[in-house]
Structures are given as structure tokens and as C-alpha cells.
């Protein structure tokens, strides 16, 4: 059996190189068919991951710990109490980069100009400075620091609507944990601009301790504990484990996808359209390869007929054709992946806002702008997956010529 297989491989290998031009066309088309999706998908995934990371760091982390019912009715009386144990366990965990405590209050901000519904995020300034990009988005004034009390930062859109500047005051009205109406005076310390108009016109941040005071929460109570993990790709697995090991009865660990479902949906839709475009491109490119393989088989019908005449089995001929496409795939798919990665390395770090004179809104998903600096998502499993899919596609396309060979009439071909 072995020498026979070797001989078939030898015939396949030499047959491939008998027509160099056609072979190069086939290989080239598979290389493109592998390299292009590798490039585009890793590039796209890089942008999405960057965006997800930014938003997760700005909001409630990749994984969020909160009260079980908080999702259904995000009200202030659904806080998670005494999270110190969980917090310190998480901070000792190798997979965790950082955690951030947040108290979220819904309410209304008033000035002489008018009243606007807002969300007050009580945060730990030192944590935010280390994980979030918001401290870098201050356009006037300064970001918060520990013990800032009544000082708050607001978005530029909200500042416009309230007609206030840094140093000016506004009144924040909300309900405390007993449902009583409470009012507090805040002074604007800084104004930020993220680019997301929803965020910039709705969010107010202040020190978490003052936010707790406003609504009467104790100093251990937290609406959400945001967890920034080192590897966001496998946060799903981690949170499952934490749910079993750490969560108290009324606490639940959730993914950023559940915390920000609309952003998740936007990303999936955008990703989906990218994948569809890729699939169409790949089909187009594979068609070139398919037609060259088909041609090469049809051209050799007579040769196959004489092989059959002298006792070659159909399965042996099919094996030969299989080896031919296998060799194409084995040569071309790794080259394609390699070139795709090479191209990604080449564009890595490039600022695409220089390339396209686009308005940042064009680069936004769910209101959040993507980082214009190209940071491809280099994931060996993803790259391998693309390569293997194209490889299998090549092998599947190789079945058609096999089918044609099995229908060859020896006598007709030999007479011709």
C-alpha cells in the first residue's frame, strides 16, 4: 500500500508542476483567498476588541458584579453589600487587571437654564485614572481626585444643555435608598468629551463616597463592581467560574455583552457584514482556483482513461486528484496566512484617520468612536481557523473533478 500511495503522490506532484503557470494561478488564488480574510478579520477584530476594551474600561468592566435584579430595574436600593471579600479575592486573581467600584444614581440636573435627566456615576478616581480613558478626555478643567466631595465632571453636551462651565454649580435631584427625594449641590470640576453623544450628554461623575452620602448608602455598598480582566477573550469562562466560587446569593457576574447589549448588537452586526463581504470575496477567489483545477483535469481525460485501461482503480485516480488539491492547499494556505500576518504587521500602528479624511462619527459603533490607530488582533487560533476553513474549502472543491473522472468513458477517450 505504501509504495502505491507514494507513487500516486509522485504522479500528483509532477502533474502539478507540468503546467507551472496554471499551478501558480491556483496557488496564487488560494494565497489571496487565505491572506485577504486573515488580514481583514484580524484588522476588524482588532478594532472591535479595542472598542470593547475602551467601553468596558469606561463603564462597568469586561465582567460586572451586581445585584441579581439590578438588570431588570436598575434602582439604587439594589446594591451589592459588603463586597470587600469578593473584591479582594478578585484583586488577588492572576486573570484580573483591576476592579472598580461604582454607585449609579439616576436623577435630574438643574441649572437656571433648565433640567436634564442624568446618570450620576460615583467612582473611585484613582481607579478610573488607571483603567479608563475618560481622565484623558477632559477638555476643560480637571479630572476628579480622591475626596473631591461635591465636585463633579460632566460631558460637553450636558454642559451645553445646562449652560454651565467649569467652576459653576448645578443641583442634582434623586431618590435615596428609602425612596425619599434628595437634592444636592455639585460644582463642575471638569468637562469631558468622549465622542459618544449619548455618554457626553447624560453622564456625570463624582467621587463614590459622596455619591453614597447623597442617597444614604453605607461605605461598603456598591451598585456595580467592574472587573477589568487581562484577557477579555475568555472572560465568559472566567465569569462562570467566579459565579460558582465567589458570588453571594443575591449577586451575579455578568459579561459586558449583558451590561451593554446595544453595543454588543452593534458590534455583532458590523462584524457580520464584514464576514459576509469576506465570504463573497473568498468565493470569488476560490472560483478561479476551482476553474483551473477543473481545466487541468478535463485536459487530462485521455491520460486518466489510459491509466484506467491498464488497471488503475477509480479510487486511485481520485486519490491522485485529491493529492493535487491537497498539495495546492498545503503550499498556499500557510503562505496566505503568513502574508496576511505580514501585511498586518506592516500596517500595525498606522493612524487611519490620516488616510481617510473621515469624521470620527463614521468610525463609531453604538456612539463610541473606534481608535484610529491600527491594532490588529493577532490570535493564532483565529488565523489558523481561517487558514483551515480555506484549506477545507479547497479540498471540497476538489471533489467535483473527482466526480468528473469517475464518469470518464475509457473507450471514448482512447479513441479520440
Amino acid at each position, binding site marked *: *500500500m505504501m*509504495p*502505491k500511495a507514494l*507513487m500516486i503522490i*509522485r*504522479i500528483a506532484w*509532477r*502533474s502539478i508542476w*507540468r503546467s507551472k503557470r496554471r499551478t501558480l494561478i491556483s496557488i496564487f488564488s488560494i494565497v489571496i483567498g487565505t491572506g485577504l480574510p486573515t488580514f481583514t478579520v484580524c484588522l476588524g477584530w482588532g478594532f472591535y476588541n479595542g472598542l470593547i476594551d475602551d467601553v468596558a474600561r469606561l463603564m462597568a468592566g469586561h465582567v460586572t458584579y451586581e445585584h441579581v435584579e439590578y438588570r431588570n430595574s436598575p434602582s439604587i436600593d439594589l446594591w451589592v453589600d459588603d463586597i470587600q471579600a469578593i473584591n479582594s479575592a478578585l484583586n488577588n486573581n492572576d486573570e484580573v487587571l483591576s476592579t472598580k467600584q461604582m454607585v449609579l444614581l439616576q436623577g435630574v440636573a438643574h441649572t437656571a437654564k433648565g433640567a436634564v435627566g442624568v446618570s450620576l456615576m460615583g467612582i473611585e478616581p484613582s481607579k478610573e485614572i488607571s483603567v479608563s480613558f475618560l481622565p484623558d478626555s477632559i477638555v476643560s478643567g480637571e479630572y476628579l481626585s480622591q475626596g473631591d466631595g461635591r465636585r463633579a465632571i460632566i460631558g460637553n453636551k450636558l454642559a451645553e444643555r445646562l449652560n454651565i462651565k467649569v467652576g459653576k454649580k448645578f443641583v442634582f435631584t434623586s431618590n435615596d435608598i428609602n425612596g425619599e427625594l434628595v437634592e444636592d449641590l455639585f460644582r463642575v470640576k471638569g468637562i469631558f468629551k468622549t465622542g459618544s453623544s449619548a455618554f457626553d450628554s447624560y453622564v456625570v461623575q463624582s467621587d463614590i463616597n459622596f455619591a453614597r452620602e447623597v442617597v444614604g448608602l453605607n461605605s461598603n455598598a456598591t451598585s456595580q463592581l467592574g472587573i477589568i480582566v487581562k484577557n477579555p477573550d475568555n472572560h465568559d469562562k472566567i465569569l462562570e467560574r467566579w459565579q460558582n466560587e465567589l458570588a453571594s446569593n443575591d449577586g451575579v457576574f455578568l459579561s459586558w455583552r449583558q451590561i451593554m447589549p446595544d453595543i454588543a448588537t452593534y458590534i455583532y452586526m458590523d462584524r457580520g457584514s464584514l464576514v459576509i463581504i469576506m465570504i463573497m470575496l473568498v468565493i470569488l477567489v476560490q472560483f478561479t482556483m476551482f476553474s483551473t483545477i477543473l481545466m487541468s483535469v478535463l485536459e487530462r481525460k*485521455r*491520460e486518466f482513461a*489510459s*491509466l*484506467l*485501461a*491498464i*488497471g*488503475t*482503480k*477509480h479510487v*486511485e485516480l481520485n486519490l491522485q486528484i485529491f493529492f493535487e488539491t491537497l498539495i495546492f492547499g498545503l503550499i498556499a494556505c500557510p503562505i496566505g496566512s503568513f502574508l496576511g500576518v505580514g501585511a498586518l504587521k506592516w500596517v500595525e500602528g498606522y493612524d487611519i484617520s490620516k488616510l481617510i479624511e473621515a469624521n470620527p462619527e463614521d468610525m463609531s459603533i453604538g456612539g463610541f468612536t473606534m481608535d484610529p490607530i491600527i491594532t490588529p488582533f493577532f490570535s493564532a487560533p483565529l488565523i489558523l481557523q481561517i487558514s483551515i476553513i480555506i484549506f477545507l474549502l479547497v479540498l471540497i472543491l476538489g471533489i467535483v473533478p473527482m466526480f468528473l473522472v469517475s464518469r470518464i468513458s*475509457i*473507450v471514448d477517450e*482512447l*479513441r479520440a
Partner: protein
Amino acid sequence: MSTVKSNEIVLLQNIKKDYGQGNVVTEALRGVDLKLVKGDFTVMMGPSGSGKSTLLNIIGGLDRATSGKTIINGQDIGILSNKALSLMRLNNIGFVFQNYNLIPVLTAYENAEYVLMLQGINPLQRREKVMSLLQEIGLDGLENRFPRELSGGQQQRVAIARAVASDPQLVLADEITANVDSETAQSLLELMVSLNQNNKTTFLFSTHDPAVIKFAKRVIILKDGNISNEKLSSVEIEESTHK
């Protein structure tokens, strides 16, 4: 099984072959009876279109008769599956074609070795067999050449080597001298005669060329799909062609 019977390599009974259907049927063979025994060296002659190739294809299991019995080596091959037919060809029949049909990507040596590979013969035996065969047919020194680097006559020698390498019961050759000059044709025929004498290989071949007749032990004339005078001896043919 009687000794006579085991000597019978080919036995055809009332073989008919129709091509096409409806009212455009061509009757290529119209009831051929034929018996070939071991060691025969039979030349089949006949005008173009008389059915020579059709008959060879049926005997070799490349095509199936419309009716009649095709018994090769005691086995009715009409009832064999395509797979079994392919195995029958591999183990019992050697083919030589008019236009060589060598595997272009294999060398002369590898072409001759091909069938032995399919049969699973071990490397040592293969080498021994192929080398001595290439020497016998006058191709030593050319074994590493590819078909395109060989003349027509040399290619046909390789094809003959490939056909006889596995010592088949029967070698079928369809107009194998048609594409070479008369001198080369002569040497190819001498080669086959010597293979017939030395190895007792049974040959059946078709030709248009009357010069071939003098090599034949037996001549068959095919005319309009039937054997017109099976009992013609080579002497009689020679006389008739020289008249």
C-alpha cells in the same frame, strides 16, 4: 478442468456490439466467435471500420458487448462489476495503444514499473523485472527519460514493456505500428515475436499493414463486424497478398 480448456485464454461466443440507439444503430460486431490459446501470436486485419478496435476493447474489458459471451481465462467477464473488470485488466491483460499513452510525468523506468506497483510487487522484484525488461527491449540507458524525451518508436517500446511487465495472460495491441516508420515497425514486431517465444506471452493485435502478416502465427480477417475467414494461415495470406 481439462488441459485444453486451461489453455484457452480467450473464448468469444456470438459477440454483438451495437452503437447508438433507435434507427441510427451501428452494428460494429455482428456475432463474432473466436478462440485464442496460450502462446498465440494473432494478427487481426480488416478495413477501417470493420470492428477491430471494438473487438479488442471488448476482449480487454474496456467495453461491454451488447450480447454474447466473453470468456477470458475461463471467466465470463460480461458479468463482472466495473471494479472487478478493472482488477481483471490489471492482472490478466496488457494493453499497447496506437499513440502510446504513456504517463507523461513518469520516466521510462517508472512507466514500466507502474503496473507492478499497482499489483503491490516488492521493490526488489520490481527493479529486477523492469531492468531486465528494458534491456531486453533495447532501452537500457534511457530509463530515466520522460516520454517527451523519447522518439515514437522508443515510446512504443516503453509501452510494450509496460504491457508485458506483469506477465499478463494476454497482450492486446491496437495498430501499434501505425505511428512509426516501417523500419521501427519491423523492430517492434520482432520484439513482440521474441517476447512471444521467450515468455510464451499471448499476443493479439490489429493492423492495416500487410507487412505485419509474416510475423503472425495466425491471421484473422474482420469484415463488416464479422470474422470472414478464420482459418487463413500465414502462408496463404502471404501468397494472397503477393499475387
